[in-house]
């Protein structure tokens, strides 16, 4: 739990600062790598930024500390009320998908914070990406507060407020550009650690049995995992086709060819690379659908229908060739 302010007046909303400390930034770096991600939570409550009055706007956000800090950072110089609701430490978009950032929790927190006694207006600015969990007309029925959907990005809050709480088309549109992709890639790699370990072990085993060079044995396997979790996600638009499985296969074939070119490979080794590596990369790239903000569940289900068996067969051939290659080293 983040300790925000030292002084607490009973019943009075705590003030939060808008300057992020070195410690905050270190926390962001660690949490991006997956360190204590589930525990990175802010106490759900009504907070003050600057010196809000009963006329000041109320914005609603999730209690993932990385989210709260992004709000803090973007709101320097503004006077606002911030209603942090309990999403179990999950960001707005993911919590909205689960419904924890939702109508019921907003209504509960509005009542618990006695918001109707604190502000004179009856408006809540809810982040637009929270809308999958929130039913604006239900919030109105339950609390008497109108929901105004704010911009997708908190950085646009200032122009949004200046424009009388109207968002232009650009503020309403979700992007998923290279900076967004780079931010979510470290966690992909960290979560893939069991696979990295298996890849390393398989490579070392091959190296121990085989005449192949150390890097020639280890790099193809490790690289296939990195290709699927880091390279394809970051360079997503550069890989051909729309299905993520095909993007991953393209990346995996590219990697296999690179390995064949780089290290001495006979026919068996080349065939092993081309069968074992692309399905691994394809599966990992396919998993990245979970981190994007433009893939539909129907699309993901279609990919599962189309590609599960072909990939499994492809991979099985790879495993067989790997065993044959190992046996060759062992016999010689």
């Amino acid at each position: 739990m983040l300790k925000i302010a030292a002084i607490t007046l009973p019943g009075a909303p705590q003030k939060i600062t808008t300057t992020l400390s070195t410690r905050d930034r270190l926390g962001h770096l660690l949490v991006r790598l997956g360190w204590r991600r589930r525990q990175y939570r802010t106490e759900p409550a009504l907070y003050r930024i600057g010196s809000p009055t009963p006329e000041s706007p109320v914005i609603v956000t999730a209690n993932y500390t990385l989210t709260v800090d992004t709000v803090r950072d973007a709101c320097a110089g503004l006077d606002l009320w911030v209603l942090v609701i309990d999403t179990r430490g999950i960001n707005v978009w993911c919590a909205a998908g689960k419904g924890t950032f939702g109508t019921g929790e907003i209504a509960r927190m509005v009542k618990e914070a006695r918001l109707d006694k604190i502000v004179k207006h009856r408006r809540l600015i809810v982040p637009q990406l929270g809308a999958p969990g929130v039913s604006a007309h239900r919030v109105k029925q339950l609390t008497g507060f109108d929901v105004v959907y704010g911009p997708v990005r908190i950085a646009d809050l200032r122009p949004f407020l200046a424009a009388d709480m109207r968002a232009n088309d650009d503020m309403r549109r979700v992007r998923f550009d290279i900076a967004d992709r780079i931010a979510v890639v470290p966690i992909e790699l960290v979560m893939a650690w069991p696979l990295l370990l298996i890849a390393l072990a398989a490579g070392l085993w091959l190296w121990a049995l085989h005449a192949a060079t150390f890097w020639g044995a280890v790099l193809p396997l490790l690289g296939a995992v990195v290709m699927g979790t880091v390279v394809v996600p970051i360079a997503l638009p550069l890989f051909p086709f729309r299905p993520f499985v095909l993007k991953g296969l393209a990346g995996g074939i590219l990697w296999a060819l690179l390995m064949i070119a780089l290290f001495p490979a006979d026919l068996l080794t080349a065939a092993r690379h081309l069968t074992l590596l692309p399905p691994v990369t394809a599966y990992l790239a396919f998993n990245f659908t979970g981190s994007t903000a433009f893939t539909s569940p129907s699309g993901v289900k279609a990919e599962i229908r189309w590609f599960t068996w072909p990939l499994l067969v492809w991979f099985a051939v790879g495993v067989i060739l790997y065993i044959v290659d190992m046996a060759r080293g062992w016999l010689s």
Partner: protein
Amino acid sequence: MRYLESVVTLQLDTAKCIGCGRCAEVCPHRVFAMNDKKAAIVDRGACMECGACQKNCPADAITVQAGVGCAYALIRSRITGKEACCG
């Protein structure tokens, strides 16, 4: 960037639409536009089925099979037979 467009399940019943404009407000891919005080689907293929429009339509004019869009969760639900969830 765009994804598989032909499988999108989004449907709008224009007869039920009361023209409040909420769908156009909440959609992060600008799938809806307001024409003549009625909502219209103008870019169906961009829909990621997040369900925001359906949830915020007071007239129940929108249906979409909304849900978790990540492969890992959907594969797991396929294997275990349970509902998909990001864990």
